[in-house]
């Protein structure tokens, strides 16, 4: 995902904004990292460039 996507992505739980932590980039693409709910503190992984913003009760891990 691109960092600019942060403008439109929200925490599915409360629609608050998300903070971004990057582990790996490829140009302007964020390949691995996480999005963190600014209010809930919930951590949503970015897996192979795709943010997983399923609510926690729908995630498999």
């Amino acid at each position, binding site marked *: *995902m*691109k960092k600019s*996507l942060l*403008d*439109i*992505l*929200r*925490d*599915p*739980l409360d*629609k608050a904004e998300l903070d971004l932590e990057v582990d790996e980039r490829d140009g302007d693409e964020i390949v691995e990292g996480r999005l963190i709910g600014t209010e809930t503190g919930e951590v*949503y992984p970015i*897996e*192979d*460039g*795709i*943010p*997983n*913003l*399923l*609510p926690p009760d*729908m995630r*498999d891990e």
Partner: protein
Amino acid sequence: MERIYEVYDRIADHFAATRATPWPEVTSFLANRGPVACAVDVGCGNGRHSELLAERAGQVVGVDASGELLVVARADAVEAGYGGIFAPIRGDAGTLPLADAVADLGLYVATLHHLRPRARRRGSLDEFARVLGPDGLGLVSVWSVTHDRFDAAEGFDTIVPWTLPDGEQVPRFYHIYDPAEFSADISASACRAIDRFESSGNCYAVVRGA
């Protein structure tokens, strides 16, 4: 039974290979629309409608609960030359991970019928309306009892298996809508219906958001 996205993760490659062509109803809905800044495809699956959106939007956000289908959708977008504007997002149609009023144009096609129970389906229509905002325009479709394969007048819950090439059947949950019930769910939600129609065994609503 598996979650619906687990089913689509399992059948993703075979599903995508047989679901490449856009629906004519979607093609006509999108004709003469745009250009717009942002289009959202809720339940984008393997992206069968994403290219149509990419032709008229500066950015296409594809939301699906199945990560495997999103991987296919992204690869197809790259191959078709719109990978740079296609953003795959893993998310739940029942609680969209998107800001209010981000979508000028939206599709919520052949997805609502996978959610249960009814309260969650209605809630997902509120979510679609929220993401469209008051000025956004969207198309919603569900499978209908009017389809040839069903013999019922009223909406019902059922299991429709997907058959893999090796013959294995993977069960998928559907709520098959009757047209009056679909109208009632649209009306009860924040979506404002502009037009409703039936075509090829599906119920459609053209809506504004809220």
